[in-house]
Structure formats: C-alpha cells, structure tokens
C-alpha cells in the first residue's frame, strides 16, 4: 500500500495475478527472458571473440554441424554473432531508454509541477526536440561524436525523451491538484520531497507502459545505425550483421534474414509486454 491517498495502486498480490493471466504479458515475458538468457550466457555458449574468423566462409545453416547457423563471408560464426549481438542490442536499448526516461521524467516533472514560465520554456523545448526527426538527430549526434557505444546511447536518449516528458508532465499537472499533495504541502514537505515521494510513484503506471516501447524503439534505432555502418566498430550488433550481409543478399540471404528475425522477435516480445502492461495498468484503455 502506498502512503498516499489516491488509491490508484492495487494491492501487489492482485497485480501479480493479473499479470500472470494476461496472455500478451506472459508470452512477451517468456520470449524476452529467453533472449536475455542467451545474451547473458553468450560468453559461455560461444567463448572467444565473435569477430574471430573460425569457419569456412559463407556456410549455410545446417551445412556444418559445428556452425549450425552458418558463417558469414569472413568465416565468422553467425550463431556467436547473434548471441553477442543480443548483448549489445539489449544493453544499448535498455541504457538508452533509461537515459531518455530520466531526462524526460525530470523535464516533465519540473514543468508539470511548477507550471508558469518554467513550464512554458520546458514545453517549448520538448516541442523542439519532438519536431526534429529522431533518427536524423541521432545520426547527426553520432556523426559529430565518435561512433562508440556511449555516444550512441547518449544520442538515442537525447532524441527520445520528449514522449516521456509529455506523459509525465500531463500526470504531474493533474496530480499536483490532488488532495494528498495539499496535505503533504501543509505538513511542510519540500517541493523535491513531494515530487519524488508523493507524486512520482502515482504518476508511474503510464510511464511503465511506455518503458517497454522505448526500449523497443531504442533497439530498432541502434539496429538502423549499425546497419548504416555508424555503430561501434568494435562491437558485433544485429544491425551491423545485417549491414555486412547486405552485399551477399543474392547468394547468402540468410546472413540478413537471421539477425533481422532476431531483432523482430526481441522487439515483438517487448511490444507484447508493453501491451500486457497497458491492459493491466490502464483499465481505461480501449481493449475488447
């Protein structure tokens, strides 16, 4: 039970059962867990550097039992690439989304809570960043900096915070007039405390739903970047694998198909989880 009086958070036991009964959530979580497991276990499943040339070049899946997903034109193991690529995609996706959430939550909370001129400026700022096409902004930032994982994460985070900011701002604007906030103010709580301890926990449900979508989008953006050759050159990512497989499209199209399928499956699982979360946490959503 939360210490606030809005009553928007159902008891944890019921929540867990609701999650378990939602087919989207369960299916998505299972797939996601499988992907995470592969990512975590990659160093054990495929010891060594995935960029090592260990096999005969361009083996088709099933041709060589040791390399059951085949090898690329340089003789690199595709299965190893997929496993290590999972690490990169998930790591970049999660951190970039976290960064976007952080920036967006702060901007939205400050603007929504304080209102007035601050809010006006922050709203303009949000609009500004929303107007610039996301992918182009990411490309520009990565081009100016060096194409390395931290820069990519920062670029995606910087380009994706506006959605969260709008959401959080809307929540704060409505919640700041709530009775429990007035009560907290009358008790002399500082603004920071009210924002962080009182309002934020109650503003979370729609934000939680958006999180999975943000991770999904971050993974797609990173894939696009590395496909274009703007990814971190030291890392094997699913996008870079698709990019490498491009020239071989006519003869060895599996090199493009497999990593793309991996992306699709992962993003699908995230979207399923997001849909499930939406069903459960937003009962007002139009689901039939």
């Amino acid at each position, binding site marked *: 039970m939360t210490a606030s009086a809005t009553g928007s958070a159902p008891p944890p036991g019921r929540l867990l059962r609701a999650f378990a009964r939602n087919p989207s959530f369960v299916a998505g979580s299972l797939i996601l867990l499988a992907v995470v497991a592969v990512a975590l276990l990659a160093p054990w499943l495929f010891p060594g550097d995935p960029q090592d040339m260990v096999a005969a070049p361009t083996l088709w899946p099933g041709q060589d039992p040791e390399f059951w997903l085949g090898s690329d034109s340089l003789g690199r193991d595709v299965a190893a690439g997929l496993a290590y690529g999972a690490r990169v995609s998930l790591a970049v996706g999660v951190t970039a989304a976290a960064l976007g959430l952080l920036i967006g939550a702060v901007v939205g909370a400050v603007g929504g809570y304080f209102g007035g001129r601050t809010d006006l400026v922050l709203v303009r700022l949000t609009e*500004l960043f929303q107007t*610039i*096409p*996301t992918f182009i902004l990411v490309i520009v930032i990565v081009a100016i900096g060096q194409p390395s994982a931290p820069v990519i994460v920062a670029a995606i985070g910087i380009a994706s915070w506006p959605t969260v900011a709008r959401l959080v701002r809307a929540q704060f604007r409505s919640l700041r007039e709530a009775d429990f906030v007035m009560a907290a103010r009358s008790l002399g709580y500082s603004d920071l405390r009210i924002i962080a301890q009182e309002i934020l926990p109650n503003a979370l449900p729609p934000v939680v739903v958006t999180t999975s979508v943000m991770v999904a989008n971050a993974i797609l953006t990173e894939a696009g970047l590395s496909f274009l050759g703007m990814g971190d050159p030291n890392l094997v990512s699913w996008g870079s694998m698709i990019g490498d497989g491009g020239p071989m*499209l006519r003869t060895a*199209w599996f090199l*493009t198909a497999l990593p793309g399928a991996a992306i699709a499956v992962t*993003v*699908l699982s995230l979207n399923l989880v997001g849909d499930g979360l939406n069903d459960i946490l937003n009962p007002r959503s*139009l689901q039939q």
Partner: protein
Amino acid sequence: MSLSRSAVALRRTAAQAIPTMLGIVVLCFLLLQLVPGDAVDVLAGQAGSATAETMEAIRRQFGLDQGLGARLWNYLTHLARLDLGNSVRFGTPVTELVLDRLPATLLLMLSALGFALVAGIVAGWVMAVYAGRWPDRILQVVVLLFYSTPGFWVGLMAIVLFSVKLGWLPSSGSATIGAALTGMEYLADRARYLVLPSLALSTFFIAIYARLTRASMLEVTGQDFIRTAAAKGLHPFQIQLRHALRNALIPVTTMAGLHLGNLLGGAVVVETIFGWPGMGRLALDAVVGRDFNVLLGILLLSSLVVIVSNALVDQLHAWLDPRIEGH
C-alpha cells in the same frame, strides 16, 4: 470550412511554429560548433595548403575568428537569405544540393504514407468489425509483427523475394536509366521502382494506423448516434461508412501527421538500401564525407518539413471536425 476558421488555425500554428523553428536553428548552430576539428582544417586540407597564413585567411573569410554571438548572427543572416553554406565536398551551395534531392524523398514518403493509411485503415476497420473473433485475432498478430520488424529488414527481404527470386521488381534506383520513356510508360516505370521502397518504409506505419483505427472504430460504434442511424433503417454498410468511419478517422488522420518525423528518419535507411536518390542518401554520404554543412542543412530542412506538415494536419483536423472552433 469557412475562411475565418482556416485563418485562425493558421495563425495559431504560426505562433507556435516560428519559435520552434528558431530554436531548431539555434540548436543546429550549436551542433555545428561541436564538430571536432575546425572547419578550417577541412577547408585548408581541401585547398591543398595548410600554412598558418592561409588558415588565418580562411578563418577571417568565413568569420571564424569572431566570437560566438557574432558567428550566430552571421549564421542567422545567412539563413535568412536561404544560404546554408557550401558543401565541403562539392563546394556547391547546400541549399541547392538538398533541394535537388528533396522531391525524391517527398515522393517516397508520401507514397509510403498513402499506402500505410489505406492498408492500415482497412485492416483496422476489419479488425473492429470482427472484434474478438478470429479474423481480428489473426490480424492483431500480423499487425504486431509489422510493428516490431525493422522496416529496412523488410525491404531487404522484399528484395530477396521480389527482385532476386521472382524478378518482378527492381531492387535499386528510381527509374530505368537511359530508356527515354514518356507518358503512361514513364509513369508505369517510375511506379515499379517506387513499390518496394514504399512497402519497406510503410510497414511500421501500417501497424500504427491499423491499431489506431481499430481502437477508434470500437469507441465510435459504441456511441448512441450509431443506434440512431440504425433506427433510421440504414444499411449496416452505410452506417459504417457515413457515420462510424467519418468520426473514427478524425483521430487517425491527425495522428498520421505526427509521424512525419519518423517517416523521414526511416527514409534515410530505406533510401540507402534501394539506392533511392533522395535526401536520406545525401545525409549518409555527408556523414561519411564529414560534410557537416550538408548534414545540418538536411536536419534543418527536414524539421521544416515536419513543421509544415503539422500545420497542414492542423488544418485538416479543423476541416474534418466541426466541433473545433478557431479560438
């Protein structure tokens, strides 16, 4: 729609758009300052001589020896004359380069958008009509797959299927080179090249519009005025078309405009795959060639496209929904 309502909506859009555009311009300027290495190094390197005097001269010529404020003013005044600087690689004005490529990108974007809207709305409509039954469930899975699959991968797989295996459609370019076609043949030829790139670009958006249309239709069909329409003895199809869809499409079409930014971003990758001669490929070439003038020019112009299309969508919304009064 009355002229006065149109004017009011336009005024409202301009009031918001101008500060946003200004902000983006300032942001672009700041990004330009962050470019590592002086632009002078690049220019000097191109000119073939990098002595201290030449670099000083270049610096003074481009006003790079002045303070930040002066340079910003310089930038803004140049912009006012539609001068985005010159391409470092080609020496030609950025404005020229980018505008030359803009039509191709717009063509691709608009055809993808059109296709996505039609396919998405029809799919969403079918899903709403059969809500809860198996056609709806199947389509929901398909839509979710479209939503999760990277567009560029769909494009590549489409090339494998339609170009390589079946040989039906071309895999690169925007028109057959050298074949001097006219009239219908020309259009048909251009259309053939447009199919696969548009398809690749549109899949994500088909999913978005399908979901939106489904949700919107379900909400509308539960409303009282649908029962009133039925009570008048109208055929279900008439009710769907004239009453339900007409209302349900309002949020869909307005949302359509908000995704222009994503569409532009997606175009970058799709153009690369299909060798489509648009702004996206220009952007990528600019990245590789460290041609930041061009890159930022593209950023500016694409943001402008987004602003203009948002304004158009606002007008469309006001036209579709008579409840929107121009305040």
